[in-house]
Each structure stands twice: as structure tokens, then as C-alpha cells.
């Protein structure tokens, strides 16, 4: 199947490994992955900061870049939610190709839960708010992780509570944001897991930043990176 990758501006710039891992997984499952180079950003940051007109422009250029794509896959729950739920509010009458967050695509479209990964580590999963509430990905990421060989999944207490990132909230209300992040990191550390996993590079960036500042014994990884691993 031919798949178009939308890497998201954040992962493109700061977390290229997430994009590479996404490709690894998709190609392993027999997809023909394309990366339309004209892509940039979904407009979420602009919409959520109060600039819907600027967001509208970005959504329109997304639509142009991906016009005719059979399926657009992206490794971010919040960007997927932006495109699915908010795009027509900033760009009226916009037509978008089908957009899938990675775990949705793997399970709903390809119909697989075992992606042939091996990752012999303890992992706890944070279901980021937009994946959880706006997209409703539900159990999908857990189902994928449970099939990973050697992986021990630890339950994260208060999993459905926000990590505190929230886009520009993280800088506009930095102290509140960090307080939320600290609680999330503490909960993850409390599970004894080596790795805190999520499907949004933005939330992971915030959590890694908090964990780093606190010298917490915790590494952060994107779901795609774990699914790509065959170690």
C-alpha cells in the first residue's frame, strides 16, 4: 500500500529519528512510503495560540501537498486531531485526504498488532490528551506494545491526566505546565519503568525536559521508535 508520511514540523526539526522509525515500521509491513517534501506544519500551534487565519493558510498548504494521497500517516496524536477536528474551522470547505495517527493506521488499516518488533525493556505508556480525547485511539497503542517481544509494560497511575505541555501553554504558563510535568514524571518513575513512551513528540519533549532537569532515572521514547526496534 502506498502511504504518505506527514512527519510534523516538530519531529522534522528536532526528532528526525521518530520519522525514520515510522518509515522503518511501515516498510517492514510492506508499505511503499512517500514523503512529499513540500510539507511543513498542520497549523495547530497557530490555531491554539489564537491565530486561526495563519493556521488556515497552513492547513490549505497541507491539503495541496497531500492532495490525492491514499493515506496520510503521522506519528502525532495532536496533529492528527488538529487535521481531523479543527481543519475545517480554519479553512472552510477544505477537503483532506484520510489522515491516520500511526497506531490507528497499523491497527485499523493494516490490521496488524504484531509489527515484528523486539525491545527487551520495561516501558510505561502515557496516552496523550489529544490522542485520548480528541482522536479516541483508546487501547490501540497498548495493543501494539503488548505484542512487542521482550517488552514489559507497566501501568502508569493517573495515565489520563495531562502532562502539562499544551503547546504555548508550556511557555505562557511555564510554572503550572512544569508542575504538571513533574507529577507525570514522578508517576512514571514510580512504575520503575526504564522508558516513558507516548505518541506525541511534543509531550515527550516537555517530559524529557522535566526529567532531564530533575535527573530522573527515565528515558523518553516515541511509540514508533519502540515499534521499529528489533534489538
Amino acid at each position: 500500500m502506498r502511504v504518505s508520511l506527514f512527519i510534523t514540523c516538530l519531529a522534522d526539526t528536532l526528532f528526525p529519528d521518530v520519522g525514520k522509525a515510522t518509515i522503518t515500521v511501515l516498510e517492514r509491513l510492506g508499505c511503499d512510503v512517500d514523503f512529499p517534501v513540500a510539507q511543513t506544519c498542520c497549523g495547530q500551534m497557530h490555531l491554539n495560540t489564537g491565530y486561526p487565519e495563519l493556521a488556515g493558510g497552513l492547513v490549505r498548504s497541507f491539503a495541496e501537498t497531500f492532495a490525492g494521497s491514499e493515506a496520510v500517516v503521522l506519528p502525532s496524536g495532536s496533529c492528527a486531531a488538529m487535521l481531523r477536528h479543527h481543519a475545517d474551522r480554519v479553512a472552510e470547505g477544505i477537503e483532506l485526504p484520510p489522515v491516520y495517527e500511526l497506531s490507528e493506521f497499523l491497527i485499523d488499516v493494516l490490521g496488524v498488532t504484531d509489527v515484528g518488533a523486539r525491545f527487551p525493556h520495561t516501558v510505561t505508556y502515557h496516552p496523550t490528551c489529544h490522542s485520548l480525547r480528541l482522536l479516541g485511539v483508546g487501547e490501540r497503542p497498548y495493543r501494539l506494545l503488548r505484542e512487542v517481544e521482550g517488552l514489559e509494560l507497566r501501568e502508569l497511575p493517573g495515565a489520563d491526566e495531562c502532562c502539562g505541555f499544551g503547546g504555548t501553554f508550556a511557555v505562557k504558563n511555564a510554572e503550572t505546565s512544569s508542575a504538571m510535568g513533574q507529577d507525570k514524571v514522578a508517576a512514571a518513575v514510580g512504575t520503575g519503568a526504564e522508558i516513558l513512551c507516548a505518541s506525541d513528540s511534543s509531550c515527550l519533549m516537555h517530559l524529557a525536559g522535566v526529567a532531564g532537569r530533575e535527573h530522573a532515572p527515565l528515558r523518553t521514547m516515541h511509540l514508533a521508535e519502540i515499534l521499529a526496534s528489533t534489538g
Partner: protein
Amino acid sequence: MSRPARHDRRRRGTEPVRLHPKPDQAFLGMPAFPDAARVALGDQQLRANLRHATHTIRAKRLNAVGEMPDWQDLRMAAAGIKDETLAHLDDYLVQFEQAATAAGATVHWAVDAEEACRIGVEIAQRHRARDVIKVKSMATQEIGLNEALEAHGIHAWETDLAELIVQLGGDTPSHFLVPAIHRNRDEIRDIFTERMGQVGRAAPDDLTSEPRRLAEAARLHLREKFLSTTVAFSGANFAIAETGTLVVVESEGNGRMCLTLPDVLVSVVGIEKLLPSFADLEVFLQVLPRSSTAERMNPYTTMWTGVSPGDGPQEVHVILIDNGRTRALADEVGRQALRCIRCSACLNVCPVYERVGGHAYGSVYPGPIGAILNPLLHGVTDEHDAQLPFASSLCGACYEACPVAIDIPSVLIDQRAAAVREKAHHRVPTAESVAMKAAAWTFGDAKRLARAQKTASLGRGVARHVGWLPGMLGGWTSSRDLPEVPRQSFRAWWSQREDTATVKALEE
């Protein structure tokens, strides 16, 4: 009706005890959310109190809601009824006025807080009241009624237990339902011991912080007020257009005493409180208690329709207030906020509220609903209201919990845009608007983005080079590390991979 003689009040002859920091004054000049939040976050006791209280009620609410297989249907029904009411509000208001008047009530209309207070004060003065008792009510807080009465030498006594704690503590409420949520039991005991005696029956000398003992002290203190006061003020949870009935829902029974014992009852009611018919109550008496106190049914539901000769208050007034509601109604996205039944579920699930408490919102309406309602009622011209829509991580927990399905995150986003427009209108170029435009320009074209990435990559480790993380990185780095900028962006890696593939293909 004969009344027991008034007890000697110790405050007589001394300086009157000021009990009411007027919400307006107390909140006015309060720092905008980010600064107020910073202060609150530093208060470890407050954070512990809030965390404990919100987590307890959260778990209970989930249980109470989980028992109802048709919860989502109920929720949609509640939202639908409210929307229908709001769509024809003018008709329902007239219908309410006619029905209530026919039943013997006097209906007043108030366009703003000042007018509502003036009407309330006049009624109290006409009855030569020096004291009035009150049922807990958001509407009277919103208009600053207690302060207006006090300015005319009339003391308003809160009778709701939590409200009493707030009043005696010289505090402002921080939660709809549990106004003293930010206080723990030891703090409450201290407040009772110190203040009760100054304004009425003193707390027993050996008062402990045991809940039963605290409740008993409050009961005895309040009983004195119930029996000696002839004018009461209330709000209403619902107002039925069809019958002119007002409804108050509560847990303690103190409200019912206020609503039935005095001779004169004045109810301040927001115009959005209407429901078309009596039958509509069925839905709301299910969704409200489960959402707010996590009870299947609230213990006391008091309804009254005008005056019943020989039974209850013989003079009944209803003050219908606008105070910004028609402004909110005119907002196509925001008007759904007027469905709010003040259950406080959104506060209890909000991770931001949990960390900073209600005071940081600097308004009678705190939490997620406050963050949209205040700007909708007042506009976003002042900095305080303009900051509120940004006091959220948009996690969506409030929307999920709201029994009338107010899409708070969407309204927040819309009000953020309104705040940005307002600044642009006054031609205030902010660092943010410049950064946002720059980012949109960079993102507007993939080549520009690639160039920006290269610059960032060259300056690896130097945070300011990540120019499009909107120029406010100080906030980020004060408490978090920044990720290192990778040597190669994804798109650079991709084009290299493509090139290699092409070269390979050509070689083969």
C-alpha cells in the same frame, strides 16, 4: 409570625466587622493568571489540599456517572434543552415573568450588577433589615450583593457551611460548590474559634477539627441567625418558564431554612437559568447531583412558585439579571457556555485548577468554565480577562466531564483568537504575534523551513536558534531542559536517502 428576640450581638458598639472583600475589589488588581498561578504554586499546603479534594471527588463522580447506562443520552438531552431555551430566551423570560407574577411574586429586571444590587438593597431597606441571611449563590457573588448591602449598613450572613468558612475567614471563594476547598480542617477550626464570637454565637472553647464538631459549631452559630432574620437572599439553580417556579438544589438543608423561614425572599437569577417546562427538571435533577457532589440525588430540592398564603415567605421577589449574558449569547461559538449549570465538574477534573486553585482565576467563576465565561461576559479588553483563555493546556478533561457538553476547549481556542484580535485592533505588536507571523512565514514554504532547520542545526546547543519555538523560550528553560537540535533534520535525511537511492538506481 412571631420571632424570638434578637440575641445580643457582640459586634454591637464596636467597629463593624468587615466580612466582605467585594469580589470586584478583591479580584480587581489581582495579577493576571500566570502571575497569580505562580504564587499559588508556591503554596505547598494549598496544593496538597487541592490535590486531595479534587482527586477524591473525581473518583466519586466517575462512579456516580458510571452507574448510568444512558449518561451520554442524558447529557445530550440536557444540552438540547438548554440550547432550545437559549434560542428562544426572550419568549421564555416573558412567560416566566407572567407566571411568577400571577403566582404573587414580583419580578424585576436588572441589566447589570449595579442595577441588581440597587433593587436588592431597596427591598432590604424597605423592610428595615439590619441583617439578611443568604443561600449560597453564584449570582449574588457575581453582582457583589453582600458588599452593596454592607455599604448600606446591612449585614449579609452566608448560611452554607463552606460559604460561612469563606466569609468568616475574610476570604473569597475558590470553587462553586466547595468555596473553601483551599482550606483544611485545622484551618477551619482556627477560623471558627477566632471569628464566630465576633459576629454571633461563639464556637465552643474545646472545638476540635473533627468534622462532626465543626459542623455542630456551625449549626448552632447559624441557628441563631435563621431564627432572628426576616429577609433572605438566594439565587436559583433553575427557573421554570411554564410555571414561574424557582428551584434551589443543595445538600445541607440550610438553604431550605433560608427559603422558608423568613418573611421576605429575594432571589437573584441569571437569565440563562430558565428551563421551558417543569418536566425538563427531570433531566437536570439527574445530571446535576451526579456531576457536582457525585450523589444520585441531592438531599434537598426546594421549589417555590410565588407566594403561598400562610406558608413560607409572604413577599417574594425575583431579580432577573443580564450582566453580560446577552453579550455571551451573541457569540456564536461561546454561547454554549450559558448552558452551564455550575456543577463544578470541570473544576474538579481540571489539571490546571488542581495545581493553582480558584483564586488564580481572579473571578467569581474559576476553573475551565471561568476561563471562558469571564471573557464572554466582559469581553477581552482588560488584560486579566484576556489572559484567562490561555490558562489551559487544552487537555479536554473538562469537556468530557461537563454534563451539558460544553465544548470548553473549542471556546477557549475561539476566545484566544478574540484576545489576539483585540490586541491587533489596538495595534499592539507583541513578541508573540511577531513570532507567530514569522513561524507561519517559515512554514509557508518547505524551502524556508529547511533553511531554518539548517540554521538551528548549525547553532546546536544554542537555544535561541530554535527561532520558531515562539520567542518565549525563557519560560521553557526556567524549569525544563531543551532538546538538542539534531545534526540533520528529517527532510535533510530524506533527501540524502533519496539521492543515494537515485545514484544506486543509476549505477545498476
